[in-house]
């Protein structure tokens, strides 16, 4: 029997707003424990939630990028349950009326086809406090409590590990490029829970669903699902039922392992949050959130191809949002140099960043200065190799390329009159070369250029020199 996988994914995205979802305490990471806490975050009695405007703007932007219907009135609900990391004993979320619903995202698969993944809902909620588990006790840090979250719930329209991976990548790209989140799975700012079941091809019933947690990279999403599909197929083929359970992905073993059997579903006793009256969102507010949204990766991709990058090159650039925005700055200076910028960014600049383990935002070379460097190459003021030397110096202090070239005497001489003098002088020094040339030995040209380079320590433009050598030899 052949089975198909039915996969649904819930993604939690931690927003990088300045303040929390419902309080004014700062959102920040890796700060001293319990120093970013307001009375609301730790659920002191009498505190009430006040909705963060930027969180709403972010949710609208992501909803829009996912082609969702956006609600023009905000409603929040309480999800009631007890857990050690849940300060209030309930989480404020949007159960009845998510801000976004009925959307989709198209992902391109490796076989070239495009798959549309349907998305059921997007809603805002708040994060719990962080637990630090020690050998025989647990410590609670409330800095994270109340951090704004977006939850995106797909419909079970995903059919393979690859589709799932591409879907998560697409969501990640959207939240990163809209500046909503760092989207770092490895650091937990983008977390996904995957529901996997299988069923015979052609069936419209759902099989027993297994939830997989602890997926810290998109690659692991694919691996975990591929493993899980194989595991469930094997079970069914050998006549064993799939149990409803929660599993986690073990990165070392590259397999899913049982966390817990699903007991009775928790009844969350949802009801509307009585401390947040419905908030009307005007059309202007929604439109403004959308129109001021930072450009999405998919929009950038189109633009990059227009200025002459291949799709592969463009995608390469979009791997890193900061790199892409640097590239955008460059394109503003001279879109015709797109390819040259790309070459630098993916060559020396990337190598430099990697070597020094820094982001491009810490690079001292400004887009303007990179452009002036490229300009000097194009005008043959610098050879490519000289340019690389100049670049290296530019990374130390932000001086213009030409200033550095001047200071280090690296500037290449392209003045024809000056070069002509040197050529004439050199030909006089090596009369045999004239004889050789006349006898049809072309290497005489190379020999002379080499001598000139040696004499000038490489500071003359080789193309011009070579051209002049031929010109003058012909007149002899």
């Amino acid at each position: 029997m052949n089975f198909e996988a039915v996969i649904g994914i819930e993604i939690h995205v931690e927003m990088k707003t300045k303040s929390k979802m419902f309080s004014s305490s700062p959102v920040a990471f890796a700060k001293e424990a319990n120093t970013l806490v307001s009375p609301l975050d730790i659920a002191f009695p009498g505190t009430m939630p006040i909705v963060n405007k930027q969180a709403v703007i972010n949710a609208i932007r992501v909803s829009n990028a996912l082609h969702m219907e956006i609600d023009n009135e905000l409603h929040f609900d309480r999800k009631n349950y007890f857990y050690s990391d849940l300060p209030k004993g309930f989480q404020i979320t949007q159960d009845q009326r998510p801000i976004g619903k009925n959307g989709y995202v198209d992902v391109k698969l490796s076989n070239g086809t495009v798959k549309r993944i349907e998305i059921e809902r997007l809603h805002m909620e708040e994060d719990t406090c962080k637990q630090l588990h020690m050998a025989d006790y647990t410590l609670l840090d409330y800095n994270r409590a109340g951090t704004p979250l977006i939850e995106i719930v797909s419909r079970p329209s995903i059919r393979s590990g690859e589709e799932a991976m591409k879907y998560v990548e697409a969501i990640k790209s959207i939240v990163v490029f809209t500046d909503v989140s760092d989207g770092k799975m490895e650091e937990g700012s983008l977390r996904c829970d995957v529901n996997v079941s299988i069923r015979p091809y052609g069936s419209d019933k759902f099989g027993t669903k297994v939830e997989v947690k602890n997926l810290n990279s998109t690659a692991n999403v694919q691996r975990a699902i591929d493993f899980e599909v194989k595991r469930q197929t094997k079970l069914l083929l050998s006549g064993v039922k799939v149990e409803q359970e929660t599993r986690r992905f073990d990165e070392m073993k590259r397999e899913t392992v049982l966390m817990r059997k699903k007991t009775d579903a928790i009844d969350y006793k949802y009801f509307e949050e009585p401390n947040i009256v419905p908030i009307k969102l005007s059309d202007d507010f929604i439109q403004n959130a959308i129109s001021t949204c930072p450009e999405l990766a998919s929009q950038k991709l189109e633009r990059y191809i227009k200025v002459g990058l291949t799709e592969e090159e463009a995608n390469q650039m979009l791997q890193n949002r900061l790199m892409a925005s640097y590239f955008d700055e460059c394109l503003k200076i001279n879109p015709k140099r797109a390819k040259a910028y790309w070459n630098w960014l993916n060559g020396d600049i990337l190598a430099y960043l990697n070597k020094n383990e820094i982001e491009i935002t810490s690079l001292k070379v400004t887009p303007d200065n990179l452009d002036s460097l490229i300009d000097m190459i194009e005008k043959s003021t610098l050879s490519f190799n000289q340019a690389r030397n100049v670049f290296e110096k530019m990374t130390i202090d932000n001086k213009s390329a030409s200033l550095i070239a001047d200071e280090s005497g690296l500037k290449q001489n392209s003045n024809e009159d000056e070069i002509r003098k040197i050529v004439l002088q050199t030909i006089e020094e090596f009369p045999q070369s004239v004889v050789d040339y006349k006898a049809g030995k072309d290497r005489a040209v190379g020999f002379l250029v080499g001598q000139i380079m040696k004499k000038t320590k490489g500071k003359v433009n080789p193309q011009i020199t070579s051209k002049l050598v031929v010109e003058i030899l012909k007149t002899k």
Partner: protein
Amino acid sequence: MLKYDLETIKKCANNLMFDMTDEQYEVLLGEFKTIIKEMELLDEIEGVNDISPMTFPFDVTTSYLREDEALTCLDKEEVLKNAKEVLDGQIKLPKVVG
């Protein structure tokens, strides 16, 4: 008909993270009997199923959203002041499993 035997309400209490004495459960069962009966009687009121449920006392909406500005928050000492067990600036609990 809503089900409210001893087992149901015990489970309900335990899910709320407390327990009660048998006597107290008995009193509670009596209260359940009355309140559920009273609530069932309300079906007789004309229009009760045609009207929407009401959360807020009157039709109240706002367009106010808080600007995203981080303000000063509590000192760590204030955060931890009321906690009974504190270690390394954090609240200490027995090991949380699962």
